[in-house]
């Protein structure tokens, strides 16, 4: 489906040149507005706070200090917990949404909601809902389920809950697509051969879903790791890495330190994307 080239080397060269020209505007944009800032950030991360030269002090400061490792631990811990819960939520949901039934479309719509709306809005809604004087607590107190309001906002469990709300659809979509790829005849065959639905799920579907589950988990983890709006608004004193970087840059004005953290964050997140794509490759080959 490519434009035909006329003749040999000369035509081909012109072809490549023409193509390259078309790509130029975008690449110039990217170079100026993305890659240059990125390089700038990396450069800033190795700039000493005072004086000339290069230094890795900011990195060691971050990765070597209790505070720095604490931030990473917090971020990874939140992400891991939220990922686990999200997968546990997505799997039965994906199974439920397999067959057509009244309201299926509506449920699919709902499932897409958290990832389509701006994170900020979702975070605000969660904040309002689960506040100490928020709707959930008002209702639970009114119905005498609780005698004291539950603290959810600004707590770790609360943050995990919010992460799950915001990010589980990423995994849900991956798992749903994986489920859809399984030949329905396989399930039928299992049942006819005498395996109960539970056994069919355990021995036929789960093995076939393995790579989807992993891909979905990595995708969710990726999003949790990079979360910003949710912890910014509802994290209280807990600052995972995204928020921490923002605070250090804008509040403490320690740009080199923030840059170093941003680079570390970028490397980790980039690594996760790479992981996700390599799982995807394996899926397509199998």
């Amino acid at each position, binding site marked *: *489906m490519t*434009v035909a080239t006329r003749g040999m080397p000369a035509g081909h060269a012109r*072809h*490549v040149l023409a*193509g*390259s020209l*078309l*790509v130029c*505007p*975008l*690449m110039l*944009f*990217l170079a100026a*507005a*993305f890659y*240059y*800032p*990125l*390089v700038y*950030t990396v450069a*800033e991360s190795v700039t000493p706070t005072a004086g000339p030269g290069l230094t890795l002090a900011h990195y060691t400061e971050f990765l070597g200090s209790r505070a720095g490792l604490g931030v990473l631990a917090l971020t990874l811990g939140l992400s891991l917990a939220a990922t686990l819960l999200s997968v546990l939520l997505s799997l039965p949901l994906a199974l439920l949404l397999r067959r057509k039934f009244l*309201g299926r479309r509506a*449920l*699919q719509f*709902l*499932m897409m*909601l958290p*990832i*389509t*709306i*701006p*994170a*900020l*809005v*979702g975070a*605000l*809604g*969660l904040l*309002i*809902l689960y506040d100490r*004087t*928020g*709707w959930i607590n008002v209702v639970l107190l*009114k119905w005498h389920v609780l005698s004291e309001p539950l603290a959810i906002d600004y707590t770790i469990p609360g943050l995990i809950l919010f992460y799950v709300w915001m990010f589980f659809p990423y995994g849900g979509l991956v798992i*749903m*697509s994986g489920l*859809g790829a399984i030949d329905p005849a396989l399930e039928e065959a299992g049942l006819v051969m005498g395996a109960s*639905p539970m056994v069919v799920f355990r021995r036929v579907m789960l093995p076939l879903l393995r790579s989807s589950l992993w891909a979905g988990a990595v995708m969710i983890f990726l999003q949790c*790791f*990079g979360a*910003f709006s949710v912890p910014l608004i509802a994290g209280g004193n807990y600052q995972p890495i*995204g928020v921490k970087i*923002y605070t250090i*840059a804008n509040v403490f004005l320690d740009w080199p330190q923030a*840059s170093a953290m*941003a*680079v570390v*964050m*970028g490397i980790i*997140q980039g690594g996760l994307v790479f992981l996700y794509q390599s799982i995807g490759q394996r899926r397509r080959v199998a």
Partner: protein
Amino acid sequence: MRTLPATLLRAFLVVGFVLFISLPLVMILLDAFGADWFGMRMLPAQWTLRWFVWAAQTIDLGAVALNTVEIALMTTVLTLAAALPAAWAIARYRLPFKAILIGAILFPRMIPEITFALGVARIFYAIHLTNTAIGIALAHVMLAAPFAVLVLVSTFEGLDSRLLEAGTVMGCSPLRLFWRVTLPLALPGIVAAALFSFLASYNDFVLTLMVYGADTVTLPVQTYLSLGNGYLSVAGAISTILLVPSMLFLLAMMRMVNPENLLGGLKGA
């Protein structure tokens, strides 16, 4: 699973899920349109538009909304201007460095927004591009371009060469061919790319937060500011306006696409 307890369990789970997902958004609506409500009762005592009015008067909500739309439109135009030729080249030219090219274009979406927002903020500050609509739009192009390119490459790859060939055989000059044949065929994809770009810019928070100024406050930023100042209901009101494009987009997508085929983020962080 046709037994009664199984069906009840299922129904219970479905209801639970529906509530889980929708309640936060319902809260936004109640917050935005209700008075005498938060912290006190399940439903507002009164329904009102006063928060919107207050916002319009005090923090100039109208101007903020206008800013957001203006920047989003600029982003869309700039993104399409750059992405259309690039996607055309990728889809229909044999370029030796194609894989690297695509990787370089998609890279902005693979690393956290804050990481390059830092650099963008510093550079913009140095060249006085902060607090300008065009500056913010330029930054947003980085977020919108990967999606736009993906959609457009797929669109252009899907164009049937035979139709284009038929056009040429029937006498169309390259320009005419593009205008009368290529463009109409690619229109759905171009519209989709435009919508993605608009949405990416409209919804963006992190990047904008780092490069905005007093004259270029956008809706997401204003939401955050109002929240920071303690005006919860105003934040809610602004959020409802923020929600509109995303919801419309989602509804439109639901009508056309199967959710299983959608992967990758659609919103701003």
